[in-house]
């Protein structure tokens, strides 16, 4: 855990610290830190979402969190509607979202809709920037979002429930039930959303009300871990989520009849064991996913069904203090069918990966290699090298080089009509370098441990060939390897933290400068060459300010998203938007239980804006909510 996060946890989250005062740790749990899932990849920059930021917006989705707290551009079609990630100038297919290391992207269309990831189901979220195909395989081109479980043995039994009402969307409820003994940890989390999203927006000077935008759904996630002994455990996790959404009309349409229903069942079984110098983790998952879509413009509804089985053993060994080896296999089998395929399609992929890490003093270097085989047999060999070093007590650097790729999705290959079985994977390479400065130590004002200030600057570069895009041929759309894309830019982060016995305050600022241009095209006379990709803002910036005084806290967020071109010749664009939000929380305790009331104003200054063309966003809107945590007083069991 990073030091700032540790400080946040201790100082800012009384619910956690107070809740643990009666707990006693009876076993010293040995975590397996050398495997990929639990260790920061050498040379990669990573942002861990601190628990304060996360706890304040449990009623929201991952898309909301990423939009407000990171340099990622979230292409959001409206409240409750599709949201995809654009990171470092990549496409929506270029950022993996991993649940305990398993990719959540639908294998058929490749899209990860982050509006369908409720934050109430997760407490451990981090963003790994940059390509990492040699770690995570296909699609890890621009970055990876990690959603990992927290296991707490001997945790206090507790129930946490919350609800939020928003003036423009509707009602969200969520809860968490935790139970733990010295051998067993179990957590059940749920959420339910009932939103009609009949929000106001303004178009051509006219006030309008959104219609046909209902978003109903629920999700439940169960995390259970049994501890055989201090070094060996097994986890069984289950995640069921159902979403029934109406697709709102375009601003140019009078009405819409489109509906989409997503139904996902996800299971994982993870066995972990470790010895003094080695660790073994055996991860298995089974996903059963369906997407139903219908509207009046279709001759018949579209139903996509997909089952995926993933099995991944991984072994790591530390030869001595300096050398660590990791090796693993990945076996993935996907079987898919939709009304647009001629028959069932099955794709089997097997991958082998190997990684070595050398660490000495303040220096680490780690080369990795991964090769994937499949019945399509097209994925390239990928390799990477990452290094990092702490130069002084205030200055450190890290960097990496990766070869990257993305396999065509099953729809790209087999959609009928149009699927192109001859598609090649998108492939290329990415590099980045990061400088980190501890400003407090730099300025020699290290006396006060309650003050933290850091500055981080990253430069990245990425080249991708065989970029896949769908274009029409007559009335039929089909995918092609159409162009090469060069992306480069920078990310700047500034973190400030100040605490004393009365106040706690933190200020996080980010700015991303992203150029992502077509460098060559297989289409004649293509004016997109040397132009910015559509929906990649050149500038994105923002800050989060948080201050806590006694039982009150205030959170202020500002996000600036620059102009986004909507035509590839860069003649049409959506204007930049500046969105402010304000949240005030009041927390209090009754006996052993905690209560928190909050109110939030989103789009504080009533900005009229579009994130996606023709999809209006809501004007100023208000939310109110309450979170209650009931704790059972635990007796010592040591």
């Amino acid at each position, binding site marked *: 855990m990073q030091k700032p996060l540790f400080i946040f946890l201790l100082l800012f989250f009384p619910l956690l610290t107070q809740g643990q005062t009666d707990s006693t740790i009876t076993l010293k749990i040995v975590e397996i830190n050398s495997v990929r899932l639990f260790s920061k990849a050498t040379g990669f920059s990573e942002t861990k979402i601190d628990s304060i930021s996360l706890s304040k917006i449990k009623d929201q989705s991952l898309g909301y969190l990423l939009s407000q707290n990171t340099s990622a551009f979230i292409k959001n079609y409206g409240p409750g509607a599709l949201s995809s990630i654009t990171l470092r100038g990549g496409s929506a297919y270029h950022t993996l979202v991993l649940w305990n290391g398993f990719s959540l992207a639908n294998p058929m269309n490749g899209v990860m809709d982050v509006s369908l990831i409720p934050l109430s189901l997760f407490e451990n979220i981090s963003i790994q920037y940059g390509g990492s195909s040699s770690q995570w395989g296909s699609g890890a081109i621009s970055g990876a979002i990690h959603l990992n479980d927290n296991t707490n043995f001997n945790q206090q039994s507790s129930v946490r429930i919350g609800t939020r009402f928003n003036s423009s969307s509707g009602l969200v409820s969520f809860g968490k039930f935790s139970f733990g003994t010295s051998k067993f940890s179990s957590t059940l989390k749920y959420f339910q959303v009932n939103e009609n999203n009949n929000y106001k927006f303004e178009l*051509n000077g006219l006030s309008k009300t959104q219609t046909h935008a209902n978003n109903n759904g629920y999700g439940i996630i169960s995390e259970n871990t049994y501890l055989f002994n201090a070094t060996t455990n097994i986890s069984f996790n289950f995640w069921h989520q159902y979403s029934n959404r109406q697709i709102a009309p*375009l*601003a*140019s*349409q*009078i009405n819409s009849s489109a509906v989409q229903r997503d139904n996902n069942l996800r299971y994982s079984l993870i066995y972990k064991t470790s010895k003094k110098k080695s660790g073994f983790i055996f991860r298995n998952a089974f996903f059963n996913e369906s997407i139903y879509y219908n509207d*009046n*413009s279709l*001759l018949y509804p579209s139903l996509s069904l997909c089952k995926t089985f993933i099995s991944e053993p991984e072994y790591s060994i530390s030869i001595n203090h300096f050398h660590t080896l990791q090796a693993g296999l990945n076996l993935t089998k996907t079987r898919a069918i939709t009304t647009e395929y*001629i028959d069932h399609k099955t794709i089997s992929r097997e991958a082998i990966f190997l990684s070595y890490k050398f660490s000495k003093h303040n220096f680490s270097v780690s080369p990795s290699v991964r090769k994937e085989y499949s019945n399509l047999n097209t994925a390239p060999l990928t390799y990477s090298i990452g290094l990092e070093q702490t130069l002084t007590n*205030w*200055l450190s650097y890290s960097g990496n080089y990766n070869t990257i790729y993305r396999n065509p999705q099953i729809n790209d290959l087999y959609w*009928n*009509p*149009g699927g192109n079985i001859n598609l090649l994977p998108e492939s290329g390479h990415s590099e980045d370098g990061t400088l980190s*400065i501890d400003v407090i130590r*730099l300025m020699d004002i290290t006396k006060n441990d309650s003050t933290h200030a850091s500055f981080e*600057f990253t*430069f990245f570069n990425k080249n991708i060939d065989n970029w896949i*895009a769908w*274009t*029409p*041929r*007559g*009335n*039929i759309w*089909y995918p092609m390897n*159409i162009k090469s894309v060069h992306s480069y830019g*920078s990310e*700047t982060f500034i973190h400030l933290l100040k605490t004393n016995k009365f106040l706690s305050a933190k200020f996080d600022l980010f700015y991303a*400068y992203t*150029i992502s241009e077509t460098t060559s*095209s*297989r*289409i*004649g*006379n*293509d*004016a*997109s060459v040397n132009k*910015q990709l*559509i929906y990649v*803002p*050149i*500038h994105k910036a923002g800050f989060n300010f948080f201050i806590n005084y006694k039982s009150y806290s205030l959170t202020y967020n500002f996000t600036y998203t*620059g*102009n*986004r*071109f*909507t*035509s*590839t*010749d*860069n*003649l*049409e*664009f959506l204007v*930049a938007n500046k969105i402010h939000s304000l949240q005030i929380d009041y927390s209090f305790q009754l006996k052993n239980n905690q209560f928190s009331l909050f109110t939030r104003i989103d789009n504080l200054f009533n900005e009229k804006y579009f994130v996606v*063309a*023709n999809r209006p966003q809501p004007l100023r809107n208000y939310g109110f909510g309450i979170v209650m945590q009931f704790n059972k007083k635990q007796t010592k069991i040591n």
Partner: protein
Amino acid sequence: MSKMKITSLLFSAIILFFGSCKKDTPADTTSTVIFNASSTTGAYIANEGQFNNNNASLSYYSGSGNSSTTDVYNLVNNSTLGDIAQSLTKINNKLFIVVNNSTKIEVTDLITLKKIATITGLTSPRYLLPVTTNKAYVSDLSSGTVSIINLSSYSVTGTIPITGSSEQMVYYNGKVYVTNIATSYLYVIDAATDNLTDSILIGYGGNSISIDKNNKLWVLCGGDFSANTSTLHKVNPSNGLVEMSLTFAPSTYASRLNMNDVKDELYFLNTNVYKMSINDTSLPTTEFINANGKSFYGLGYNNTSNQIYVSDAIDFQQSGRVYRYNENGTELGNFGAGISPGYFLFLNN
């Protein structure tokens, strides 16, 4: 080197980096445009725009030179056209613009483009065909019907059930022949009774239709890129018999069938532009105009100038271009259009 020196160097490098920042607004292309449509030489081009982006547009080309006036509908009416401008039809000095994904038809004056009416109540309209003085049919991608339009009240007065996705239509001798991109039939509607009277088995995916000088119907079918290949059919409307069927190579998509002014030559797209005589008994083996990497998307024949207009939609997400060729296939010039230019209406045709 001191801490401050190192820090200063770092920040200088960063400032230098941002100093070379790229602009995120397009180069200023604003200019004063004059729009005077010519009823003899002018042409309108329907630019579909990007799906769901509400940026369909209409371009006007005077008939000569290498420039056009873009977005003329917006220029005149101060409002966007909508989403996916599919086709254009002129009836009695009025222009009917079928805007597919906005589920409407905009009606304007043919010359001034001043808006007259909007026809709504449609599902996914594609093409409009006048069948009597006061009546028109509108094909539809997904409603399973052809809509009947009253040309005086600009309203939908009824529907004619037709399976699948009705597409281009022609009128001949009291009957309307309707292609269908989702079946293998050419459908026949009695224009007097508005009843479906017959269906003629052709190839899968009929997308365009023309009548030659001998009053034979030519129907181009795109197939489905899979088991059904593209086909071309010659149909005798007097007896409903298919007199000739020609099959294209697999994995090709033929579309945009057009006739020349004297109705004895066919032009169509199949990646390139192809030309054949109505007397030919086989498909042309060599292209008439090679696309040379262009994304040919729309095709039209100008009866006045005997020129072939072909649009290049490039990647369908940027402004396209229109190329003009003479009857020998020699390029005469080209001009810019909007995004995804797909349909031509020559004012004097």
